[in-house]
């Protein structure tokens, strides 16, 4: 029998008992529908995060933190760990085992023999008070630093490229001037409180307006020199001054090998280096796990539906015992009988999956639009459900595969029928 004839036969057989087929397809539909939506949700989240994260980028940077050592396993410690006195005096480059902070000399010492390093920026923690264009109207301003080697995606102007520069968030820019392009090049006044709570101001040039993102929704970003200035002023005289949780190391080139070597070297010295790509991967892995977790619910629905397929086909085999017997008597091979029944189960899966995917996409798209209308302000750039061709193809294939496996048992039973007994069957 030709493949096409078998497919046609299988499809015709399905439509012999329309109601039963329809009900089985419905069960598959529910599962595929759910799977489509959970996938869409995961992809929506991923796309959103991807867009947000991409707003701050740095191809040649490595973020350095102190490595968190796992406690030695052979000695289960009860109570607090033993205090280890810091042997060295100030200025030493040895790491303090009681703290996660790193000083500039420590960092520089660790990177001394590492070639290719272009700049080292400590993660200055700075706090702003207000920002003003004309000195009259003041807006509350969060402040952040853009480390050397990092770039910001901008709606107008460009990213920071020198000292005494600032990039402001889109929301603020729109409040300052509806024509955000005109802000670029203007000078803004930034105010902050120093260590003695005295308000101080700085005049910085606006070089760009940042695209919306997790980090750039509210904060203005200044260059590292300005940040250093503010930091020194704010932390003056404090004990924790000069101790940082993180450094940003800029490499001279984006050479992956050099980055890997640097990470390796840092690791040996008790630090942990992560790149932008590492961070992204972590986030995407988390979303991936979330997606799989949600899909499991849909898979349970599909599992239940697959028993519907088994049931449907077992009954079909009983109903068609004589027909199968005749076909075998007339020379149909076992394999072909198996294939016809397999096609029937796959077709049930296929129709269910097709309807489920289409239904899921329709509902998802409508839900996305509705939600965007309701919460547009807080989720700019977020599409709740995103449907991509690969994920739709995966759903279709997976459902057809599940359907096929559900059909194996009945199809096998059909293929094993003895023609003589089948023809005698009452």
């Amino acid at each position: 029998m030709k493949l096409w004839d078998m497919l046609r036969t299988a499809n015709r057989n399905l439509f012999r008992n329309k109601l039963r087929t329809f009900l089985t397809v419905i069960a598959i539909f529910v599962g595929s529908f759910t799977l489509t939506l959970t996938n869409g949700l995961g992809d929506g989240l991923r796309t959103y995060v991807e867009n947000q994260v991409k707003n701050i980028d740095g191809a040649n940077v490595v973020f350095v933190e102190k490595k968190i050592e796992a406690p030695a396993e052979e000695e289960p410690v009860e109570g607090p760990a033993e205090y280890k006195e810091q042997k060295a005096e100030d200025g030493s480059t040895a790491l303090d085992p009681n703290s996660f902070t790193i000083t500039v000399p420590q960092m520089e010492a660790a990177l001394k023999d590492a070639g290719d390093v272009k700049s080292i920026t400590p993660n200055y923690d700075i706090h702003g008070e207000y920002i003003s264009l004309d000195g009259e109207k003041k807006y509350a301003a969060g402040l952040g630093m853009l480390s050397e080697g990092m770039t910001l995606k901008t709606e107008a102007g460009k990213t920071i490229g020198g000292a005494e520069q600032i990039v402001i968030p889109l929301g603020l820019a729109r409040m300052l001037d509806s024509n955000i392009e005109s802000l670029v090049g203007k000078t803004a006044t930034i105010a902050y409180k120093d260590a003695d709570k005295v308000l101080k101001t700085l005049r910085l040039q606006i070089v760009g307006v940042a695209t919306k993102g997790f980090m750039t929704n509210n904060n203005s970003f200044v260059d590292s020199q300005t940040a250093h200035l503010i930091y020194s002023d704010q932390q003056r005289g404090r004990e924790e001054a000069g101790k940082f949780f993180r450094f940003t190391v800029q490499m001279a080139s984006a050479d992956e090998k050099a980055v890997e070597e640097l990470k390796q070297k840092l690791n040996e010295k008790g630090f942990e280096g992560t790149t932008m790509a590492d961070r992204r991967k972590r986030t995407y892995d988390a979303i991936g796990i979330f997606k799989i977790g949600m899909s499991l619910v849909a898979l349970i629905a599909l599992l239940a539906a697959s028993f519907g397929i088994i049931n449907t086909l077992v009954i079909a085999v009983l109903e068609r015992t004589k027909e199968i017997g005749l076909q075998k008597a007339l020379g149909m091979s076992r394999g072909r009988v198996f294939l016809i029944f397999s096609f029937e189960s796959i077709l049930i899966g296929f129709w269910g999956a097709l309807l489920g995917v289409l239904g899921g996409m329709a509902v998802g798209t409508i839900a996305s639009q509705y939600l965007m209308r309701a919460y547009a302000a807080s989720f700019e750039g977020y599409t709740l459900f995103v449907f991509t061709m690969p994920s739709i193809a995966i759903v279709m294939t997976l459902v057809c595969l599940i359907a096929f496996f559900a059909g194996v048992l009945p199809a096998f039973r059909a293929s094993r029928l003895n023609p003589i007994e089948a023809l005698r069957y009452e």
Partner: protein
Amino acid sequence: MLEAKNLSKTYTSDGVAFEALKEVDLKIAPGDCLAIVGKSGSGKSTLMHLLACLDAPSSGQVLINGEDTSLLPEKKKNALRNEKFGFVFQQFFLNGRDTVFENVVMPMRIRGAGGAQISAGATHAIAAVGLEDKRYKKAKDLSGGEKQRVCIARALVGNPQVIFADEPTGNLDSATGAAVENMLFDLNRQKGITLVIVTHDGDLAARCSRIVEMKDGRIISGGEQS
């Protein structure tokens, strides 16, 4: 062309062995018109099933054109039944929702024939049983006699060398039964198709050129000639 050599078949159910066929020898020549008669349980259907390769013997051989079929793999046996044999059963085994055409061409479809070949074969076979005007009728809408004629067309469509008919008129009244019989005998006479009819209808058997009578799994008369 068909030969049974020392053929035995034992069925075992619930541990009890039942010898349906005991060391049967039979030769069937091309163009023979042969009736296998006997009471129910005499083994006549079993003999037909073995001759038609629908079942495997417990011992002995079935030779087709001198070739031992027990040595053939499953695939070859399937092809053999499909290409060389035609079957007419007491029950029609038609697919009621399908058209006469679809029912008739089933062996061609199983064979994997092309569309043109299928169409030509169907036209020929349907014309041979005089159902041209019912070609696209649903099989369930036919009368009993017409249904059996569809079955004959189905047996005929693949140009078989042998047609096995198991009680072909058992479900028909005598008038339509006679018409179906005539059709089968015509095929035997005009096309030289070997006819093996299993029946307990004495009148039908009497119209065959050879009668093999069976009792308790053995041939008691008609087996020796050929």
